């Protein structure tokens, strides 16, 4: 595949014509073949087995640790006075942030008619779902007695009590719950026609049955497509404000509190920019090896990767701006506590974390200003891995530095994680990759029908409006527009 690839220069930048969204020598059949071929191979590549084995082991470790936590209590974590929000909340915010890229690519880029999204949206949506699964895990086990986690929901009960709807923590339950549900519906809804492709090609009995059930009997009817497209458009329009709201609500967990360093109106936009930043970095982290491993270079071209790198550069600058603006606001507020907290962040006992964050999120992505660098797979991988690390540290810095340096010096402290904290963070990556590798193996990893819709052949026999069609009396005649 890579040999054929080198002969096609679909990366050329000719401003006089629109660059093709996928490699121009592809037919409809090739798209189906390439994407379905991934799921139909009797055996996945060896690298898949290695990665799956490691991820599964880490997932096992995560759930053993959760069992230990449930039996013993939350004391197994490093959370203690004054830092009651330690790794679990940091991990939660980190994973929710990652989960933003998927819906952003699917919904916002869809509304803006950014058709290049079609090659990567399925992939990114899947990543969203799995990131939200990892995110949902942490607040769930953070409540301590997890068998009472249902108290989070307004369920009529014998105590005749209701949750407090004016608390940001409850807003969080609704925001993340809605986001997970809508993302799942959006992902599955887009996948129905592609599951039908897999169904129609399936050879094995179980594959036929399962793809058959999940494709719901899709027939490709034009009347169905009509409602389907309308529903998809509206789902995108609904998901767009939703994706912006989720991390805003997550930021309220901090911003509505009165702690210096948290109580700030900049937090919602700053969190959303950071979420998109980290999400795109994670998409590229996954996409870069996956497209090579499964031979998708013609559908997910270097141009796609480059576009995402540009988004990473732009959102990285926004995040850098927010870091600078926080200092300005702290100074401008005239509040000694605010000023102290920010100086302490940069030069206090957590300065190491702060400078890891700034280096990874602001300095390193600057490499993407150079075209050569943002097309070099090794450089890209280097940058996005550091962005992933940097964004985790951002949440760590926000949560921990403020909690350990609040208004009362008597309650100052230093947070140290336990090995369970670190094991659960690593284990959550195991869970994420396990789910993702299963997705790569069994589901259509590129939106087949959408890619076909943006190929030149889909419009090649375009006849303009429907009046013209009416006049085209000769059957089978084709006019090129």
């Amino acid at each position, binding site marked *: 595949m890579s040999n054929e690839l080198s002969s096609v220069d679909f990366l050329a930048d000719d401003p006089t014509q629109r660059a093709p969204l996928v490699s121009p020598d592809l037919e409809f059949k090739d798209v189906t073949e390439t994407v379905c071929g991934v799921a139909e191979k009797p055996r996945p590549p060896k690298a898949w087995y290695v990665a799956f084995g490691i991820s599964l082991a880490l997932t096992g470790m995560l759930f053993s640790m959760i069992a230990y936590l449930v039996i013993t209590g939350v004391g197994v974590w490093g959370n203690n006075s004054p830092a009651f929000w330690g790794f679990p909340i940091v991990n939660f915010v980190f994973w929710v942030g990652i989960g933003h890229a998927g819906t952003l690519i699917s919904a916002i880029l869809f509304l803006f008619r950014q058709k290049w999204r079609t090659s990567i949206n399925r992939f990114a949506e899947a990543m969203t779902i799995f990131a939200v699964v990892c995110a949902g895990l942490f607040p769930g086990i953070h409540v301590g007695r997890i068998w009472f986690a249902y108290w989070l929901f307004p369920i009529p009960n014998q105590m005749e009590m209701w949750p407090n709807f004016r608390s940001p923590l409850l807003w969080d339950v609704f925001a993340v719950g809605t986001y997970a549900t809508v993302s799942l519906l959006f992902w599955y*809804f887009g996948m129905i026609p592609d599951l039908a492709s897999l169904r129609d090609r399936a050879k094995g009995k179980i594959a036929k049955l399962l793809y058959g059930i999940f494709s719901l009997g899709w027939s490709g009817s034009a009347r169905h497509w009509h409602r389907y497209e309308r529903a998809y458009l509206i789902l995108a329009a609904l998901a767009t404000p939703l994706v912006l709201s989720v991390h805003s609500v997550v930021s309220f967990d901090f911003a509505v509190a009165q702690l210096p360093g948290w109580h700030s109106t900049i937090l919602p936009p700053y969190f959303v920019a950071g979420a998109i930043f980290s999400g795109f970095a994670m998409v590229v982290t996954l996409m870069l090896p996956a497209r090579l491993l499964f031979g998708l270079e013609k559908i997910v071209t270097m141009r796609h990767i480059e576009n995402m790198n540009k988004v990473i550069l732009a959102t990285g600058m926004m995040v850098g701006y927010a870091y600078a603006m926080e200092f300005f606001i702290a100074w401008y507020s005239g509040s000694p506590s605010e000023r102290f907290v920010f100086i302490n962040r940069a030069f206090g006992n957590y300065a190491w974390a702060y400078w890891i964050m700034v280096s990874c999120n602001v300095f390193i992505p600057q490499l993407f200003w150079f075209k050569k660098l943002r097309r070099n797979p090794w450089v890209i991988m280097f940058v996005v891995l550091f962005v992933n690390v940097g964004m985790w540290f951002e949440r760590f810095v926000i949560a921990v530095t403020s909690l350990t340096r609040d208004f009362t010096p008597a309650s100052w402290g230093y947070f140290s994680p336990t090995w369970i904290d670190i094991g659960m963070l690593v284990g959550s990556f195991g869970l994420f990759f396990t789910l993702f590798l299963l997705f790569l193996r069994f589901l259509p990893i590129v939106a087949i029908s959408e890619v076909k819709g943006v190929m030149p052949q889909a419009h090649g026999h375009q006849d303009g409006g429907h009046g013209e069609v009416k006049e085209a009396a000769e059957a089978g005649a084709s006019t090129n527009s």
Partner: protein
Amino acid sequence: MQASANADPKGESAPVAGILAEFDGPGALKKAAVQIRDAGFTRWDCYSPFPVHGIDPAMGVRPTILPWIILGMGLTGLTIATALQWWTNGVDYPFLISGKPLFGLPANIPIMFELTILLSAFGAFFGALILNDLPKFYRPIFSSKRFKKVTDNGFFIGIEASDPHYDSKKIQSLFRQMGPLSVEEFHDTDPQGALPKAFFRVGIILFLLGLIPLALALKSRHSTSSSPRWHFWRDMDFQPVAKAQRASAFFPDGRVIRPQVEGTFAREQADDNPHLNQGRVNGKFATTFPMKLSMEMLERGKDRFDTYCAPCHGKDGRGQGLVAKRASTLGEGTWVPPSNLVDPRIEKMPVGEIYQAIRYGVRNMPKYGPQIKVEDRWAIVAYIRALQRSQNGTIKDVPEADRGKLK
């Protein structure tokens, strides 16, 4: 499923369900669609691997009502969220937080927003599926082998046999004029549908099993039982709480009640006025009051006595309070009757000893030190003395000048 339909041995002998024509690409499909539409067919459809741009006007498909369904669902979500928050936090279980209004708009907006989006998304997803008649695992058109290409690169038009204008020969020749890749009849090979029967059987069994817990819950709501409520999580029933006079498994010395920590002293141990605070003078019970007696003090003492002491000792101090009467009626075995405060035994007690009984308790009487202030305790002591004098007094206690008034 269509695969099983294809394997059906009946195959061609099954009843004809319609005619299927394949076209070469989206352009040809649209042109053909216009002709079929103009020929007046109603039960027909185009099939393609992706939504073909401009096919709706070519087919004469009217815009779907789906957006209105979604709008309706969105407004429902908004209403539910508003009503839920208003009723739960404002009416049913009023949540007072820093004196803020029970229902104010800003704090309730996030959940209104989320539920509006959530229900709209349900409307879009389920609305589109229901309007499209999905899931429906079997359609007669699936029995065509060629039709499998529809999810790959096939563009088809199918006219159903149920169409009022249906005439197999006429339709076939109409299609042939349009230059299709193929024209064929498709058959209804599996009118029963495609999902294996076992699915329905298992589904029904699971559904019925799922009703059992609900039925049990419903039954227990409408019946009474003398056994205690069933606790799923018993962790608050068994608490490692230390009880007085029990052995402790936690402390190495086995004592539940902890001795005073070395180098510390209790507040009362730093006492600079033992007469007032403890009722002792030189380690012995005080026989005098630490303050001057007054009518005000006696009235205060009566008020405190009636509040704290009278329930057991009775208003006259003879130990016949309501609690004492009730306890002796019930014949409680562990009940120690309250003392008769006007008994000569107590009359002879130094005031310091009565003060100490109030402060630290005596026998079954609990200590009232934490509830009654120091001055009030002395006021009660003074009032007890007054009760004793008024009930045990003799004519000698009355000043000679006033004795005449008694007669």
